[in-house]
């Protein structure tokens, strides 16, 4: 566990040592800020519902960009070999890198805390959905990070890792909009798979164990798949 913590800390610092962190954060804030405030005054409601409504789609693009380098870069420059011959196991590597990804997503959300604060000045803001929304955002970020880490474990090319991660995360986000194409029997399964539905539930301020279990399952499946890929590599 100590090893995982070392790796996580190193990865988190590595984000801020290169320009990628600042670019990703800037784009994230720009996109969410623009889409949120462009309609905010038209609705004339003191709520963050639009911000959170948009978040899964934005995350489907941003989170794979955050996680794409975690393993692919190591494979590419060969440092994976030096890392793995230090006294660490596969699980330390995966948990450490996953934790760094989640921590980065959380750090990315911190500047958006000015939205609820400013909105609270403009009207009576209901803080329940806001807290739920941020909790959901971290859970969603964690689930997408796990998927992104798995994509990163598949290849030594960061672009490929990004595209695979994007494809999976985007599918998970939009799958509930596709249900009318499929036979009735699969509708229940497909709508359970939809990250967006679970996220919106949490963002309403309703903390339901089913939603929490969903996000934790996606995390577990993503990380375990990454673990198997690393194991199969040698």
């Amino acid at each position, binding site marked *: 566990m100590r090893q995982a913590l070392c790796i996580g800390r*190193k990865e988190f610092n590595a984000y801020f*040592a290169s320009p990628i962190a600042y670019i990703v954060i800037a784009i994230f804030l720009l996109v969410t800020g623009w889409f949120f405030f462009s309609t905010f005054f038209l609705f004339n409601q003191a709520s963050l519902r639009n911000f959170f409504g948009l978040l899964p789609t934005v995350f489907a693009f941003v989170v794979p960009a955050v996680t794409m380098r975690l393993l692919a870069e190591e494979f590419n*420059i*060969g440092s994976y070999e*030096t890392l793995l*011959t230090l*006294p*660490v196991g596969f699980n330390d590597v995966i948990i450490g890198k996953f934790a760094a990804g989640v921590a980065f997503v959380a750090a990315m959300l911190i500047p958006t805390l000015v939205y609820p604060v400013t909105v609270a000045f403009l009207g009576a803001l209901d803080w329940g959905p806001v807290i739920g929304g941020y909790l959901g955002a971290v859970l969603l970020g964690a689930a997408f990070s796990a998927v992104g880490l798995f994509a990163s474990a598949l290849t030594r090319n960061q672009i490929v890792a990004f595209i695979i991660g994007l494809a999976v995360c985007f599918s998970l986000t939009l799958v509930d909009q596709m249900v009318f194409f499929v036979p009735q029997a699969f509708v229940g399964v497909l709508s359970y798979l939809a990250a967006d539905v679970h996220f919106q539930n949490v963002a309403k301020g309703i903390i339901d164990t089913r939603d929490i279990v969903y996000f934790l399952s996606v995390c577990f499946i993503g990380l375990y798949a990454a673990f198997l890929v690393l194991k199969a590599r*040698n």
Partner: protein
Amino acid sequence: MIRVENLTKYYDDVCAVDQISFNVQRGEILGLLGPNGAGKTTTLRMLTGFLQPTAGQIQIGNFSINDGLLEIKKILGYLPESAPLYHDMLVFDYLKFVADLRGIGAPRRLSRIRELGDLCGINEVMHQPIGELSRGYRQRVGLAHAMMNDPEVLVLDEPTSGLDPNQIVEIREIIRRIGKAKTVVFSTHILSEAEATCDRVAIIHHGKIAADSRTAHLKETLGGRSQIQLMLEQADPAAVQRELAAVPGVTRVEVLAPADGAIRLVLTCDASRDPRAELYRRIRQTDWTLLEFHQETLSLEEIFRELTKES
């Protein structure tokens, strides 16, 4: 210290390492020699636990690679070929990261990094990003990385490739210094390097061990077909040829062009016996003047070519 038995590795259908076995004692420096693609790197990667062997056993210290991998990693230091390190980290930060992973606590950490800085000569680049370092410095940072935990077993994959002659001498010096108390295994395709640094050499070819013995011994046994050079004065070439060809063990006598009344001979001998004593006895019985008499064993270079040439 290291025991390898019937180690085999297949990449899909390609056999990279084929049933090799060797032992390394504590305080011994083993050089793995071989042409490119012989299986040296694959062997070292399995030794360090980075690759899983297809079959075979590896034991390091009291631990087996199958169930004690983490314990092995704790007593082992490894520098992969061309020192792949994180490019955007500072040297100091990187060494600190390695110390953390090695479980070297904060009080000990700084002094250890300083020691390694002195040993490997990287103090002046401590605060530069690894990606900006020259090849030689990066190799030294890699060496510092490998020696962080003062390892019982040090494994180095082509540690001197890409270095300038001065750096090569320095790195060899470090290897020899460490090799006095610790076990060192390193690979190289430079023969003079193995000759200069190793106690023992294992030549790998096509994934098999073609020869494994002490450096001096290897030269003696495989140099069995040695050559003896003679220079005689006041001698008749025909008589010399007749006389010396009769000595048991001498397979061929070649008389080189005489110069200044002396003749130069090259005798080729087989490995069965050492003809030198007999040769000397016979020459003493004649009235030839012996000017020169020395044996040349095959150099490691020739042995290597002999063993690894395509049949």
